[in-house]
C-alpha cells in the first residue's frame, strides 16, 4: 500500500486527454490507471476485461475487502446441499497472475473525487484516471425494527455470502421435525429478486428430504407479489405440499419488528415464532458509494444508460447492485453484463479504443427442487432515461420434468461460465 501512496500522481493527471495506445514495455507509472472498488460479479469482471482488452496499456488495480469471494449466486444451492462451500468460493489469483491486475486486499474508506484518489482504511491513497465502483449492497438494518448487525448473529440475513451463509446452513441443518422457520422477505429493490424464494425452496428441500413433514416455513413478505411467483408456488405445492406458507401484506398487515431474544417476528396480524428466523432487510448501494456522493435519495447510484458512467462524476463508473439499472434486476448476470459495457467505455476514454453501442442481458435460474430448475431472462438497451427491457421470457408452469432438469443442468453450465468470465479460468 505504501508503495502506491508514494507514487506521485501529478505527472499523470492529464493522461486521460491524450491518445494512449501505449506499448506494454512502458513502466506502470506511465500508463493510465484504472482502479476498481469491489471484486464481486461487477468489479472483477470489469477489471479483467479492461486488463485483457487493453493488452497491458492500462494499469488496473482491484481493491477488495476480502482475500476470497464467496458467490451469493448458488449460495442457496449450498444451503440445499447441492454444492459445497468450497465450490462457491473463488480466489483472485488468476486475475493477478494471468491478467496483470494488482489485487489489493483492504477496505476502501473514501473517494477523494477532487484529487482522483481512493483513500484506503489504513490511510494510504490509490490514484486513478478512471474509477469503477462495484461495492454491491449494504443492508438497511433498521428497516426491520429490532434488527441489527448483532441480531444477525442470531437471525442471519445471509444476503452477503461468507460467514453468514455458513451460519444459516448450520441453523437450517439443526432444525427438527415439528419446528418452524420464518423468513422476513425484503422490500423492492433488492439483490436477486427470485433469491428469497429459491432459498425457501432449499429450506423445504432439506426438511422434506429428512422426512420432516411437520416442519413449517412461513414467509412474511412486505411485497404483495414476487418474482416467478406462479412457478415457485406451483413447485412448493408439488414437492413440499403444505410446508410453505407465504403471507403478503394483505394478510399480515405489516411487519412491525423482530425480537432476537425470543426468535419472534411481530406483524399487525399476529406474532410468528421461528426456531430459525432469516431476516432479509431493505438494501442500498454499498457504503463507499454513499459516502462518495454517488448515490441519490433512492440509496442507489444513477448512471448513464449508454455507458454505466456515474451521472455524478464523469471519471467514475458504477456497476452492479449499487447502480440504478432501469429494468435490469440486481443480479450477478446483470453486473457482469454492465461491467463489459463499462470496461469498453473506460478503455475508450483512456486508449481511444472503439466504443460500440451498449448491449445488456440477464438470465436468472432458480432451483425449486432436485432437477426442477426454472429461469427468467431479458435483453436490454439504453434509452434516454434508463436501461430498458427489449425482449424477455420466463419458464412456464406445468413444464415437463425433462425440460426442468435440462434447465437445472444449464444453470450449472452458466455458473461455470460466469465464474470463469469473472475471475478468469482457473486450473
Amino acid at each position: 500500500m505504501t508503495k502506491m501512496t508514494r507514487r506521485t500522481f501529478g505527472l499523470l493527471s492529464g493522461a486521460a486527454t491524450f491518445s494512449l495506445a501505449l506499448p506494454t514495455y512502458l513502466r506502470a507509472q506511465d500508463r493510465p490507471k484504472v482502479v476498481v472498488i469491489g471484486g464481486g460479479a461487477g468489479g472483477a469482471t470489469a477489471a479483467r476485461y479492461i486488463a485483457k482488452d487493453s493488452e497491458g496499456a492500462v494499469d488496473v488495480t482491484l481493491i477488495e475487502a476480502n482475500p476470497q469471494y464467496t458467490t451469493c449466486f448458488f449460495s442457496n444451492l449450498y444451503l440445499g446441499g447441492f454444492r459445497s462451500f468450497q465450490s462457491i468460493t473463488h480466489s483472485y489469483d488468476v486475475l493477478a497472475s494471468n491478467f496483470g491486475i494488482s489485487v489489493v486486499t483492504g477496505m476502501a474508506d473514501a473517494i477523494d473525487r477532487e484529487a482522483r484518489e481512493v483513500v484506503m482504511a489504513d490511510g494510504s491513497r490509490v490514484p486513478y484516471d478512471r474509477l469503477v465502483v462495484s461495492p454491491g449492497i449494504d443492508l438497511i438494518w433498521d428497516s426491520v425494527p429490532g434488527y441489527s448487525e448483532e441480531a444477525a448473529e442470531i437471525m442471519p440475513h445471509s444476503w452477503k455470502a461468507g460467514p453468514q451463509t455458513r451460519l444459516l446452513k448450520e441453523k437450517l441443518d439443526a432444525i427438527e421435525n415439528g419446528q418452524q422457520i420464518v423468513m422476513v422477505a425484503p422490500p423492492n429493490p433488492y439483490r436477486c429478486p427470485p433469491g428469497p424464494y429459491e432459498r425457501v425452496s432449499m429450506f423445504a428441500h432439506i426438511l422434506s428430504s429428512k422426512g420432516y413433514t411437520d416442519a413449517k416455513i412461513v414467509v412474511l413478505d412486505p411485497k404483495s407479489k414476487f418474482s416467478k411467483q406462479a412457478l415457485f408456488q406451483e413447485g412448493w405445492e408439488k414437492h413440499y405440499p403444505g410446508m410453505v406458507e407465504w403471507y403478503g401484506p394483505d394478510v399480515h398487515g405489516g411487519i412491525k419488528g423482530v425480537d432476537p431474544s425470543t426468535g419472534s417476528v411481530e406483524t399487525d396480524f399476529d406474532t410468528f415464532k421461528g426456531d430459525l428466523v432469516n431476516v432479509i432487510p431493505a438494501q442500498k448501494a454499498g457504503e463507499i458509494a454513499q459516502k462518495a456522493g454517488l448515490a441519490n435519495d433512492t440509496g442507489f447510484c444513477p448512471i448513464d444508460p449508454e455507458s454505466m458512467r456515474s451521472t455524478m462524476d464523469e471519471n467514475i463508473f458504477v456497476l452492479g447492485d449499487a447502480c440504478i439499472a432501469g429494468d435490469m434486476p440486481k443480479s450477478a448476470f446483470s453486473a457482469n453484463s454492465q461491467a463489459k459495457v463499462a470496461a469498453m467505455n473506460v478503455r475508450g476514454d483512456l486508449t481511444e479504443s472503439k466504443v460500440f453501442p451498449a448491449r445488456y442481458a440477464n438470465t436468472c435460474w432458480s432451483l425449486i427442487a432436485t432437477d426442477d430448475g426454472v429461469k427468467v431472462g431479458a435483453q436490454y438497451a439504453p434509452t434516454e432515461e434508463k436501461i430498458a427491457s427489449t425482449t424477455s421470457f420466463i419458464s412456464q408452469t406445468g413444464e415437463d420434468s425433462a425440460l426442468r432438469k435440462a434447465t437445472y443442468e444449464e444453470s450449472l453450465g452458466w455458473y461455470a461460465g460466469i465464474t470463469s468470465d469473472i475471475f478468469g479460468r482457473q486450473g
Partner: protein
Amino acid sequence: MRQAGRALTLAAGIAAMALTAGAAAAAGNLAARNPAASDLAPSDPITSDPVTGDPAAGEKVFKECRSCHQVGAGARNGIGPHLDKLFGRQAGSLEGFAYSLSLRRKGSQGLVWNEETLDIYLSKPQAYVPGTRMSFRGMPDEQARHDLIAYLREASAEAPAEDPTAPPSPRDEIGAIAMSIEGDPDFGEYLSNECVTCHQPSGRADGIPSIVGWPKVDFVRALFEYKTNVRSHEVMRMVTRNLGNDEIAALAAYFGSLSPQ
C-alpha cells in the same frame, strides 16, 4: 473454481467406476493395454459378454448425433468430427478438426475408439473425458448405446470425403445472406461478450454447449434456427431476436477463429 474442478473430476471418476460391468471390463482392458491410461478407469478387469447391438435400431439412435456428426461415404467434419473409419482411430487424431485439449491428451495417452471405449464414452462423455467439447449429456440406456455402436460399426466402414476438412456447402436457404457476408471477427469479439457469460471461450462444455471452432455454416444455421423458432431454446431465441445478419456473420467469424483449449 480449482476446488470445484477437482470435485467434478472426482465425481467423474466415481461415475466412471459405477458403469456397467461391460464398461468396467472395457476400462480394465484399456488400462491394461496402456499404463498411461490407468488413471482413466479402475484396473480390475471383469469379464462380461461382448457388446451386441442391432444396427437398424442404432440408425434411429444416431438421429441424436446427426446435427454434429456425419458418417458414411463422403462424410465431412462439421460441428463434430466425421465418423468414417472411426474404429481403430486414435481419439482426437483427425487432421483439420479442432478437438479439445483433453480429448487430444487422452488420444496421445493411448485412447483408441473401439466398441468398449465408445461404450464408456457415450454413457457419459464428460465423465470419461472431462473437458470434451462434445455437448452431449450421455446415453444411460445400455441397449441404445450398443445399437448405436453396432450401427456405427457398419456405417463407418465407408471412406470419408476426398477432403474431409473442406467446409460443406450451405445446406439450404436458411441464413443464406449471413453466409454470404464476410464476418468481422473484431466486431464478433465485442458481441461475444454477451455469449461468454454462459458459453466458455475455452471451449469447455459444463452443461452449456461449446461453440468454439464451429464451421461457419453450422454456426450461422444454428443461430437462424433459434431466430426462426426451429430450435426452441428460450434464452437463445431471445438472444438471436436482436441479432442481424452482420452480427451473426461476425459472431460466426469470431467463434470460428477460436480453438478449444
